[in-house]
């Protein structure tokens, strides 16, 4: 069942069908791999990104699914062509994709990270200062309640 291509898989079926033409090659043919990911994976990705619309290309929540499919596609074709994944061509491919689609976006993905220092420092310094102020206040008030000013 490994050689059959399930038509319901969509993108991956396309990759599967195309790869079957190259069964004869047993070792990894870099030129073929490069050609295939540009003609199958990239085309599908371009269509999806156009559907999403250029305005939303920098919205990671919108594009993560398509990006994941692109990654999957390159990995699948690598498996079919007996190439290991990732490799130098994948690096070049993705760098080009990023240059074209994500050039103006902020670099972080969805992982959580601290706010920038300009926001973080006031958040930390303020409670410390208020603490010191409050301590001074309590010391001063307990002095006064003695009648000693």
């Amino acid at each position, binding site marked *: 069942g490994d050689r059959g291509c399930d038509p319901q898989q969509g993108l991956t079926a396309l990759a599967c069908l195309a790869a079957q033409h190259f069964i004869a090659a047993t070792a990894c043919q870099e030129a073929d791999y490069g050609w295939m990911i540009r003609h199958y994976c990239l085309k599908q990705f371009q269509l999806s990104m156009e559907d999403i619309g250029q305005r939303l290309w920098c919205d*990671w929540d919108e594009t*993560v699914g398509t*990006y*994941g499919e692109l*990654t*999957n596609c390159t*990995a699948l074709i690598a498996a079919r062509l007996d190439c*290991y*994944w*990732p*490799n*130098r061509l*994948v*690096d070049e491919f*993705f*760098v080009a*994709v*990023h*240059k074209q689609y*994500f*050039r103006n*976006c902020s*670099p*972080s*993905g*969805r*992982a*959580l*990270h*601290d*706010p920038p220092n300009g*926001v*973080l420092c006031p*958040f*930390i*310094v*303020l*409670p*410390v200062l*208020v*603490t*010191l102020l*409050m*301590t001074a*206040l*309590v*010391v001063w*008030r*307990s*002095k006064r*309640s*003695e009648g*000693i000013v």
Partner: protein
Amino acid sequence: LFLSIQRIVPSLSSTVNYTDPTLEPVVTENSVIRQKIIDSQFKCYERMNRAPPYKKKGLFCNRTWDGWLCWDDTPAGRLTAQNCPDYFPDFDPTERASKYCDETGNWFRHPESNRTWSNYTLCNSFTSEKLKMAFILYYMAIVGHALSITSLLISLAIFFYFKSLSCQRITLHKNLFFSYVLNSMFTIAHLIAVVPNPGLVKRDPVSCKVLQFFHQYMLGCNYFWMLCEGIYLHTLIVVAVFAEEQRLHWYYLLGWGFPLVPASIHAVARARYFNDNCWMSVDTHLLYIVHGPVMAALLVNFFFLLNIVRVLVTKLRDTHRAESNMYMKAVRATLILVPLLGIQFVIIPWRPENRLAGEIYDYIMHILMHYQGLLVATIFCFFNGEV
């Protein structure tokens, strides 16, 4: 403060099967893990795009994404390393993954498969021992807090039963013990209900964030009551020179009311900027919103106590000998406790690299952190001369 426990204990369930030593990235089915990897991949290619090209002379290996981690341009003949990723439950992010760039300017290829290969074997090789130790520390923490609660409740009972003991200082002790009891209760609730329960963490109900909020609040209360004790002694000895009755309203405000401020600011900042599940992550500097004031309080307390000792030793030695002895005893107890309670904040960044020393460090830190209530009850009540 549950650094290693929170990292490893939630992952009590499945570990991933890998074949050593050809540990290599494969496409996984688990969507949460895949999501993390895709995020890292995106960040990696962004970084590769934006970083300036390699400027130094000589051969080098090109920057690359190896499927799990991002590697920068590396000079030929060098072994580069970075921390292991945290995608999988049995990967320890404090271990190092390495990649070798050979003399010809190509990344190292594994001899068996002839594919470019990074060394992730250290990431999951010691995990079973570390898991065992994490369990030991976990149970130690629970036992510590349970012992603390018991001894503190006994002390409170002693203080309430024997009316002859009661004075203002004992009132402050009672409040301090009470805040320790509440802190231990919240910590035990957190350790038992949230930490070993990845399903709950995944669902991320509001109740576990509320629990964290109260946990941070009680932590603040603990240390601010210690500060109140220090301020009281300072006012008594240095300022008012043994006049007895002060009004305690301001102490109650500082001890119970004020810790709401850092805890609330932390909750707001966490919800806005670092809203992870159940606010469990300790990898954020936002925790200093609570720990900063606590450290400030400890520092101020320490200086007050030094000042008190100075006054007791120099000025009162000749004039009020009998009283100064009594107060010296009172100060001694507080002076012992403040460094003990505070030292965990000082040495926490310096965990030794050596494995054995690191384990000893972990045990000592856990004892210092979780047996504090027991220590406080012992020094202030059981070893108290008047009691």
